[in-house]
């Protein structure tokens, strides 16, 4: 398996050359040792445009091995352009197995979501990050933001959240909601909805973040305290939805709005397509089971 996977392709295994992988691997190790700190790295040009996940792709390429099973999601979906392209990229250049099932993957590369199904300790979640610096829109100079991180000077971020409240009556940040990692670094969790922020806290899985254009890698090790910034009188809250998913009927998942016609018709469905499909299959299984039980009226030995 290993030999054929490496030799059967005209590409270097997982596209990147070995020296680039070593450089990225060293940055990943420093990132894990300093949770939430953005490690600079010499990001390479990848055969896809910036903004399509070049940072995440480089991390995945540096960590993936022949035995890994890769899942790629884009806003929760396995079947959107970005996810299909990146999955195909690694199937071709690394010869690895791919999956859409969250539970079967050893590496999950994601754009802007964390899967609904809780991750396991043997999984790694790789985030694609557009702007890694949480202070960037408040302070455009890298020299200054670096100093602010060094001095743990994060007052400006709280002022920003306060201004949200003054203007809108609540904290209006709904995605890329800033977090404090292990009580030290304020970090941008990438543009995941704040609905997913609680999953960062004490995660069983290692979380790696890659920003290709901005040339930064950072990490949250498993079982690390990750606190979403807030105020005592305006505590952090996640989005809630009034309706269940229109496809699988599950409540408590993150929903996407789908416009169905030009007359204002809309539906809300799970953004995590794998989760939604499995819920549908489970519902059908329960229906089949109950209808079978009703028709036969036999004694059930196992549920």
């Amino acid at each position, binding site marked *: 398996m290993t030999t054929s996977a490496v030799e059967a392709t005209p590409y270097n295994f997982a596209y990147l050359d*070995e020296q680039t992988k070593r450089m990225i691997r060293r940055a990943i190790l420093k990132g894990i040792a300093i949770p939430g700190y953005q490690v600079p790295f010499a990001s390479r040009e990848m055969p896809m445009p910036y903004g399509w996940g070049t940072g995440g792709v480089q991390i995945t390429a540096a960590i993936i091995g022949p035995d890994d099973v890769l899942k790629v999601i884009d806003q929760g979906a396995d079947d959107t352009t970005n996810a299909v392209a990146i999955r195909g990229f690694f199937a071709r250049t690394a010869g690895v197995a791919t999956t859409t099932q969250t539970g079967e993957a050893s590496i999950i590369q994601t754009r802007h979501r964390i899967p609904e199904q809780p991750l396991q300790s043997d999984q790694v979640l790789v985030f694609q990050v557009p702007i890694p610096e949480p202070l960037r829109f408040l302070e455009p100079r890298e020299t200054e933001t670096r100093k602010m991180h060094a001095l743990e000077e994060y007052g400006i971020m709280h002022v920003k959240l306060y201004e949200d409240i003054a203007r809108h009556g609540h904290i209006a940040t709904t995605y890329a909601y800033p977090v404090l990692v292990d009580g030290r670094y304020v970090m941008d969790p990438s543009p995941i909805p704040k609905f997913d922020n609680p999953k960062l806290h004490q995660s069983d899985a290692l979380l790696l973040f890659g920003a290709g254009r901005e040339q930064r890698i950072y990490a949250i090790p*498993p079982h690390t*305290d990750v606190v979403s910034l807030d105020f005592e009188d305006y505590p952090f809250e996640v989005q809630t939805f009034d309706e269940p998913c229109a496809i699988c009927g599950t409540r408590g998942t993150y929903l996407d709005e789908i416009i169905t016609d030009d007359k204002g018709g809309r539906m809300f469905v799970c953004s995590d397509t794998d989760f939604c499909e499995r819920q549908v299959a489970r519902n059908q299984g329960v229906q089949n089971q109950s209808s079978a039980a009703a028709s036969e009226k036999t004694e059930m030995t196992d549920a």
Partner: protein
Amino acid sequence: MSDILESPRPAAGGAALAGGFAQPVVDAQFVFRSVMEAFSRPGRSIALPTRVAPPPPLTAEAGAIALALFDQDTPIWCDAPLAGDPALRNWLAFHTGAPVASGPDQAAFALISACDRMPSLSGFAQGTAEYPDRSTTLIMMVDTLMSRDIVRLEGPGIEETETIAPAPLPVNFRDQVRANHALFPRGVDILFASPGKIAALPRSTRIRANASREG
């Protein structure tokens, strides 16, 4: 150059060329994932089976880590028993191309074989407040990870508590590790390499005060 000419050519050359990864791409990835797992779960022993065969006193595990992570961009520092061995120097030079650091405070990686006589952690590169990643990663070759001198750990990567018990270590190692953590986010990161197993002690890890005997 003079080293190479003076040393018995065939033996030294052969030794320097042999003992690397059998499959450099796959083996480096495997070793890196083991190291990443170790850093993600500080203190936990991670199996590292390897057939890398560096010249002694460099161990197979430390040699494999060196091959996976060192290259021309990483100045390395070796402690006296390693630095004094030309065969080892040639082996590292051939397989990794890593330059020798002018001092421990200039090193990206440090290879340490005599851990009980090693220099203080504060002598290595600590990184800066703005770039704490520019610090030394120490690869310490220990005889065991399961000595009787058990240290309890907590921090990122550790669910409740974890224990680690490498030996041999310098007498005041706990105090050094505490001081190293107190510098956070600056400080060094440590990777223990014992026969068949590795374990990490990154700067983020705290030593728990406990009742067991102090080192």
